[in-house]
């Protein structure tokens, strides 16, 4: 017994490098970022302590609110829509394609949908801004070909359609992730319940809704959590495609803080935006995890 206690002590040494490095780099940086958010600083010289001034300014900054509004819109495009569409597609692939047409087609479908996931987001952004370009872009070319010239808009160049265009791209990107997770989730389910319901004459959609979805709650909560966090962190596509514009039409918190850090050099202000974003993300993640526990417990 004494030996075991002794050993348990030595195990701490194994955690030391990872914990120390993480604490310094991530913990330390985050703490310093919070400190900076109470300061007025241009990045050189001594930071000047101004208390809550940055946060007070944020409350009156229209762009700040707009950026968070857009982040929440991205939750729809990157999390909610891909989750439900992905769930449906995964169930269709699993129940119909794999059953009737074999694994080769089902693999082809999964890989095709997954391809956007493997490409770096900024590169995806380049591809899409190229496709969306008003004169020579493929999307407008097709629209003109099928007689919808009036719909051939400057998608990223005008405020009314810029968010919509980014959102469509996000759905294109995200589906692959949700489909892959849900297909593997479906594979772990016991077919017994589903078969019993089928013999009782339940339609596919009834079985999907009442039997399949509740059994996939663990996957659902993981997918919702990770994609929601990703949605609030969006930076790369906005940076390469719109720069937050036109105007503030696609401004998001991540880009907004970057902009203040490195363009206006209002470092403290940028740090305040980043801190608010971090807080919202943490609260949201804890909330979703709790919800997951509660759903898991009542089941």
């Amino acid at each position, binding site marked *: 017994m004494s030996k075991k206690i002794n050993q348990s002590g030595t195990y701490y040494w194994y955690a030391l490098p*990872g914990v120390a490095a993480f604490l310094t780099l991530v913990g330390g940086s985050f703490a310093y970022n919070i400190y900076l958010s109470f300061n007025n600083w241009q990045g050189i010289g001594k930071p000047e302590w101004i208390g809550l001034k940055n946060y007070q300014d944020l409350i009156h900054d229209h762009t700040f609110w707009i950026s968070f509004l857009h982040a929440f819109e991205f939750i729809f495009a990157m999390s909610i829509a891909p989750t439900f569409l992905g769930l449906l597609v995964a169930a269709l692939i699993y129940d119909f394609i794999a059953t009737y047409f074999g694994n080769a087609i089902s693999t082809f479908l999964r890989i095709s949908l997954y391809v956007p996931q493997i490409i770096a987001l900024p590169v995806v952004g380049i591809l899409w801004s190229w496709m969306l370009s008003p004169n020579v872009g493929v999307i407008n070319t097709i629209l003109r070909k099928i007689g919808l010239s009036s719909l051939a808009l400057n998608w990223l160049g005008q405020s009314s359609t810029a968010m919509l265009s980014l959102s469509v791209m996000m759905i294109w990107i995200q589906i692959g992730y949700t489909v892959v997770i849900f297909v593997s989730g479906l594979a772990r389910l016991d077919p017994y319940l589903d078969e019993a319901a089928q013999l009782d004459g339940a339609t596919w959609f009834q079985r999907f809704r009442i039997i399949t979805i509740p059994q996939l709650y663990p996957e659902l909560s993981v997918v919702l959590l990770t994609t929601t966090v990703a949605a609030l962190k969006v930076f790369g596509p906005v940076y390469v495609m719109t720069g937050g514009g036109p105007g503030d039409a696609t401004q998001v918190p991540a880009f907004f803080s970057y902009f203040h850090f490195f363009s206006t050099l209002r470092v403290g202000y940028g740090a305040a935006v980043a801190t608010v974003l971090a807080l919202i993300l943490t609260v949201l993640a804890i909330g979703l995890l709790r919800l997951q526990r509660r759903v898991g417990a009542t089941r």
Partner: protein
Amino acid sequence: MSVKTKKGVGPYLVLGGLIGMALIWLFPLYIAFINAFKPQTEFVKYGVLALPHHWDISKFGKFWGDVDFTKKLANSLQISLLVAIIAVTLSFLTAYAIGIGRVKGRTWILGFFMVAFTIPQEALIYPLYSMAKTLNLYDSIWSIIIIFGVMSTGFGTYLLSSVLTTFPDELLEAARIDGASPWRILRSIVLPLLRPTLFVLATMFFIFTWNEFLIPLVMLPSNNNQTVTLSMAITTGQYTSDPTARAAAALIGFMPSVIFFLIFQRTLMRGITLGAVK
């Protein structure tokens, strides 16, 4: 899953719908592909949808040379590979203490790593930037290697800890009774059994790091130190006058990712689902 009944028309409708969807999903890649090989004159004449009559590969060479893509590839490879090694090592050691050593306070350590997962890079970037400048690591790929090597341990520790808490107790007990030290247990029992999982994790870190954007954007201003992803994002803007050159650039940019994916497809899929179920 379903009881196999006679096919009827339903499954064919589903098949048609899903294949249509898959083709729409592949369409952007197809269109980038055909335009990357299309001479600009043909693009002007026949537009973006036409297949090239004459397959032109000169744009790849030009873009490759213009951005010194060989250098970018070497940078990205070096960064991603070292990050994968550092992050897997650190994650494994920490997870070993948590999952096998069951050290006191392990829930707190794990909780800390998990909260850190939600912190956006924006909330770290300025302090990291200042730190790198002070330490003379600014504009060096080592800044990126250290930062991602450490940052990735959050996810890695979380994942490996949950794998290791399910590690068979009998094996460990037997070894302890035989008087094996923690180091010996790590080397002779845990590591060999965990090797496939560590490989999955390393592959994921490699690809995540390859795709990183914000931190390299801030840390690596000079052309010579940039990564593939970063150079793609900031140089292709120069190619707005020639749409086919842009397509070629995009194609070169995502080729490495596609190649990795084809090589590591199974490993990666295992990793993604491993992360989800744990």
